[in-house]
């Protein structure tokens, strides 16, 4: 395929330009975070005297340790359970093709279009009645429920593509359904399960509205959920606010850089199979 030089360089310029626009904000707040506390620096100045200590300060004052623990706890409570039950459901709907599969699929997919804001109000009253409001469970349980549409859909898409011959052969050998699931299909599903797990971890870490409404103490929310309170506290101190913001986005950024292929693949394949 012959491509003209102008197209080649024009195209590359476009890509570089967009990459710059994308990354500029990160660079800007990083530089701003290094300025002395209390100053209002311009957008892109490297400070004369970089204050690396600002990160330590923001870490302590914003109760980051408590937030890290809280977020980690929530992720550990949400993701494994969600993976387990969605894989089972996806298996039943996608591979076993139990009667009612189409209805079930439709029911779950319907949930993909529901905005959190639409159900947050009754969710609040529901949790009050259940007695779990204002506990970490208040965030964990709805998130598991809210992830089911995407997760079941995603796992079902994988299982639908599994050839039936494998199961046939296993059944001939006398395998039970649970055995089929546990010994044969689960190991084969390792890749989609990993991708899904990473995706759900990122989403949980970044969850804001649910944490904001359903947990009263900002220190018991997710990191993102506490960002609002943090902002109010530091609105004057821009460098410190920037340092705090960087600390909050750092975990997911690191996770992404390490697992970028899986994350991108997971998100896209799940969407494409729709």
């Amino acid at each position: 395929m012959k491509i003209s030089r102008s197209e080649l360089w024009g195209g590359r310029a476009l890509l570089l330009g967009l990459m710059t626009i994308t990354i500029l904000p990160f660079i800007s707040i990083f530089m701003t975070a290094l300025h002395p506390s209390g100053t209002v620096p311009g957008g892109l100045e490297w400070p004369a005297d970089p204050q690396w200590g600002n990160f330590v300060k923001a870490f302590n004052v914003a109760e980051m340790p408590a937030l890290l623990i809280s977020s980690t706890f929530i992720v550990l409570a949400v993701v494994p359970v969600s993976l387990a039950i969605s894989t089972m459901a996806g298996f039943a709907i996608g591979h076993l093709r139990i009667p009612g599969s189409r209805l079930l699929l439709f029911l779950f997919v319907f949930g993909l279009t529901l905005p959190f804001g639409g159900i947050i109000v009754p969710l609040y009253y529901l949790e009050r009645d259940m007695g779990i409001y204002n506990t970490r469970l208040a965030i964990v349980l709805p998130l598991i429920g809210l992830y089911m549409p995407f997760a079941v859909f995603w796992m079902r898409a994988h299982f639908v593509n599994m050839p039936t011959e494998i199961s046939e052969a296993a059944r001939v050998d006398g395998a039970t359904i649970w055995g089929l699931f546990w010994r044969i299909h689960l190991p084969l599903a390792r890749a989609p399960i990993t991708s899904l797990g990473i995706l759900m971890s990122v989403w949980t870490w970044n969850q804001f509205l649910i944490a904001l409404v359903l947990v009263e103490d900002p220190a018991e929310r997710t990191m993102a959920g506490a960002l609002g309170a943090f902002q109010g506290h530091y609105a004057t101190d821009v460098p410190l606010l920037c340092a705090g913001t960087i600390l909050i986005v750092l975990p997911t950024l690191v996770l992404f850089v390490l697992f970028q292929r899986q994350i991108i693949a997971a998100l896209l394949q799940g969407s494409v199979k729709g």
Partner: protein
Amino acid sequence: MFKMHKFLSTVVMLAILVTVTYMPNAVAAQSVPDCGTEPVTLNAYFETGFDIPFKLAEEFTKQYPNVTWDIKQDQFTNLINSTPRLLSGDNPPDLIRLPTMVSFAEQGLLKNLDEYASAFGWNEWPVPQLNQNRVAEDGTRGSGSLYAMGLNYSLTGIFYNRELAAQIGMTEPPKTLAEFDDLLAKAKEAGLLPIMMWGSAKSGMGLAFPLQNLMAAYGPVEPINDWIFQKPGATIDTPSNLIAAQHLQRWIENGYFPPDINAIEYTDANARFGKGEGVFIFNGDWQNAGYDTDMPGNVGFFLMPPAEEGGSPAAMSAPLTFGIAARAKNADCAAFFFNWVASNDVARQINVAIGGSNPGGPSGLVMPEVPAGSVTNETLAAGVVVGEAGTSMDFIANATSAIFAQGWTPELQKMVGGRQDAAGLLKAVQEEYERELSE
């Protein structure tokens, strides 16, 4: 005779029995609630960015070691949104910051403090602002049972940057509105920003302060207070208020406020004023400590001058309102804390030094000393003037739970953007007010 003896002894015994049964109650009715000696943890909700309740809590634990605090803090907007849930939930706070309270009092979510008021003698305090925390049976404020207390009593007026003021030739605070207008015009001509204010929806529209000050400069304060207290038939859309709003509109059109005011948050405005941007700023004495730190010796205060020479200056003066949830576990201790804040010497000192505001309290208590050069000297003196003139008002932002976010803020922002005029502003806010009250 034997029977008489028996009868008398029975009567005496009955009398003793009755007295013994009722005496503890009689004693209890006169004893003052306190925090006891057992360990107590007070469940509290404070607002971020204001140090004074935290410092008072620290000092309280120092003096009463059996009392510890479980303090949660959240941003103003988040707190306003969470308060109904917090008060009606399973773990209602013993102490919570309450910018608005009428709906909560009406719904029975707040503890009625009348008993404490009589036990501690709060009703005898010479502080008229206590009435702002009263809610009557019909839901109007200003009279009736007490449902909240203030940690201190703030005063709102005009702070000025001494250096910049000298630059425009201001030698003493203006005595009339016209003089103030002159100063603003001079500042503009000199290339200075006349008034720094905040206006982003995130912290709410600060122009409500100058607007209300103008309203009180042109007219009496009773109708304004009536409207804030939801008295039946009250309206904010009055002829004198219209003149005030038009005056504000002129200030906006003359460019006296920062051009990006709709994006400036409260804390940013104060930071910029502290760095010398703006000759004047309308704010309250809760910010004194901040101004003293940013501009030591360079900040002054005066009350908004009246429209006519010799009139009484009026000001917004409100308690830093805190309430106790109706089902709070440690209500007695929280009430005791209220009393302690106003009467304990150390607490009063902290209140004035850090809070910058009048600690209230019973008459006869010495006003704590304030270091010379602190602007708190001027605000306390001004507070006395307002107290004597009887011209204190609550904030128009507090009339209903949502009038600020849904009424004043969007409409004032539109006025800044040239999309709303004075008459439209008052009409729109009055409509929103009536709509909320009819729900």
